[in-house]
């Protein structure tokens, strides 16, 4: 067999007790003229093979920036990573050279984006773009790479893949485009796949199909999947564990089951209550009061305190650590017991 570039990847190192991917106390800030925007303030999470981690949070919570830091596609400057580690199989990606990181991108860790139309190059056919992955990284001939592209399009369940391989991205529907994006991202069998709001731009029926597809692909290949979303409904069936982010911090970490049964952070609780429910038809939809925090001037203490129904005096002054509730479950709320018990 031809020696492929995957064999000579720079990421080696100890990989025993280490998780597949570990983000450890990551800080990301953007130095702008208006001041320092602290987008990520000490985020830690891990993903293991075959595991799905859902990162949940509203716009500006830092969930996408964390993902971009993992991929190394942040524009630096203005972005800076003053502190933290991103370990892939025990190797800190932040310490690798740019060439080494390019080797990791796409081959070991891949990413799919929210809007597949703008994420696909408009001037090349989808077949060309998928097969490019094989030509560039695996040194395949054009014909072989094209064959693999058709196979991949079949694998992501694009009907009549053979006929459509020479169509341009704009000739596909939204759901089909996202499938093409997924095909490109899994082309080189990455070990970690980051899906940044993969279904946000799609309508509800197609959302479910894309989530099914991701779940199936993950089962087949045992990838670690990081699913970034602001939609609690999307993650319920697919995710194993959830990290809820607010103002660049993880405020709650739990298994899917625990979080739906009893959230331990007022923000998670608010998110769950703001999902429309059939049995509450006709009533006003709950909304978390107030606005997301200004990242230039984060509130003192707990960043959520201006919007929190459980607020006490010490919330304004003391930053809550991620209290351990049980096992891997944690909540960054001084009053997690009250939240968990449903007292208000």
């Amino acid at each position: 067999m031809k020696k492929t570039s995957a064999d000579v990847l720079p990421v080696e190192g100890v990989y025993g007790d280490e998780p597949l991917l570990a983000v450890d106390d990551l800080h990301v800030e953007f130095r702008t003229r208006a001041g320092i925007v602290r987008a990520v303030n000490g985020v830690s999470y891990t993903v293991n093979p075959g595991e799905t981690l859902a990162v949940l949070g509203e716009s500006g919570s830092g969930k996408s920036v964390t993902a971009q830091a993992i991929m190394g596609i942040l524009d630096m400057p203005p972005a800076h990573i003053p502190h933290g580690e991103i370990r892939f199989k025990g190797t800190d990606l932040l310490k690798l050279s740019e060439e080494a990181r390019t080797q990791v991108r796409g081959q070991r860790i891949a990413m799919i984006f929210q809007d597949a139309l703008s994420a696909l190059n408009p001037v090349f056919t989808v077949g060309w773009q998928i097969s490019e992955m094989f030509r560039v990284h695996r040194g395949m001939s054009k014909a072989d790479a094209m064959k693999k592209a058709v196979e991949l399009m079949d694998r992501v369940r694009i009907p009549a893949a053979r006929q459509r391989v020479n169509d341009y991205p704009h000739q596909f529907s939204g759901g089909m485009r996202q499938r093409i994006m997924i095909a490109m991202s899994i082309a080189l069998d990455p070990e970690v796949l980051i899906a940044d709001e993969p279904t946000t731009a799609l309508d509800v029926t197609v959302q479910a199909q894309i989530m099914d597809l991701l779940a199936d692909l993950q089962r087949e290949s045992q990838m670690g999947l990081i699913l970034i979303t602001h939609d609690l409904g999307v993650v319920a069936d697919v995710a194993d564990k959830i990290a809820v982010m607010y103002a660049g911090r993880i405020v709650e970490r739990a298994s899917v089951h625990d979080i739906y049964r009893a959230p331990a952070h007022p923000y998670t609780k608010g998110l769950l209550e703001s999902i429309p429910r059939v049995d509450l038809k006709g009533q006003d939809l709950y909304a978390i009061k107030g606005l997301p925090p200004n990242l230039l001037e984060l509130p003192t203490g707990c960043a959520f305190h201006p919007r929190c129904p459980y607020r006490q005096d010490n919330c304004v002054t003391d930053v809550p650590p991620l209290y351990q509730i049980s096992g891997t479950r944690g909540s960054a709320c001084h009053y997690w017991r009250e939240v968990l018990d449903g007292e208000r």
Partner: protein
Amino acid sequence: MNEATGQSGHTSALAEAPTPGGLPKAKSGRPASLWSDAWADLRRKPIFLISCGIIAVLVLMAMWPSLFSSVDPFNARTCELATARQLPSAGHPFGRDNLGCDLYARTIYGAANSLVIGISTTIFAALIGGLLGLVAGFFGGATDTVASRVTEIFFAIPSILGALLIGSTFRDSGLGIWLVVISLTVLGWPMTFRIMRAAVITAKSQDFVVAARALGAGPGRIMFRHLLPNALAPVIVVATINLGGFIAAEAALSYLGVGVQPPEISWGLMIADAQRRFLEAPLPLIFPAVFLSITVLAFIMLGDAVRDALDPKLR
């Protein structure tokens, strides 16, 4: 689970297979590229065919002028001062110019210099400006600043003055028409630079470039595979339109006496010669001017057709 999987595949086929854009299935089976699709599109365009026809005739004229005219205008014996400004007659369809030379032959032979100067200047200006613009737009920062300032210096030179200066300074260099090419290139590349840089900056901020990076494309690949093809269309359009402009500029320079030098023949020179007696004999000016206009127009029409074909979204 398998059943559910099968089902979701099935519903997706039902829900999404008949996309409106999926109609042109006839062209499947061959590796379609941007360029081959653009070509398929162009072949059916009357504007493209007409402009290509005109340009083809012009190229023939430039390469084998003797096909069109049996008179050799470089042979002084074909000119007779006594017949100066003669009106069209048998054997001399355009009449004769101020020196009694055959106007038709001179007009035909003038195509070569116009086309060579126009095409070479366009190629050089597009290469220099395009490459610099790609690099400046992609790397940004200090690279961009330096390149942009240098471009502005060149932009600040009034083009006719600059070309006059270069043309008269190096008049004796023996470069002939290539001196015109050089001076027009020196003054013409900043336009391509600006357009390429702007197009690259626009393309760079688009998601597919970030996505390409996220899927492991290196800087070279991003520049030449993702940015260049997406930024090329405006450059090609401007280059083709500029080609007409360069041909016109050559005429202007020749008219002013720093372009093509006699005994070479060029439309600009012919216009300059004819202008002095225009009121009594308008034809020696009108014929080269009409040829010049048609040539410039043909390239502008070509540029327009190519732009439409290169933008998949317009199809």
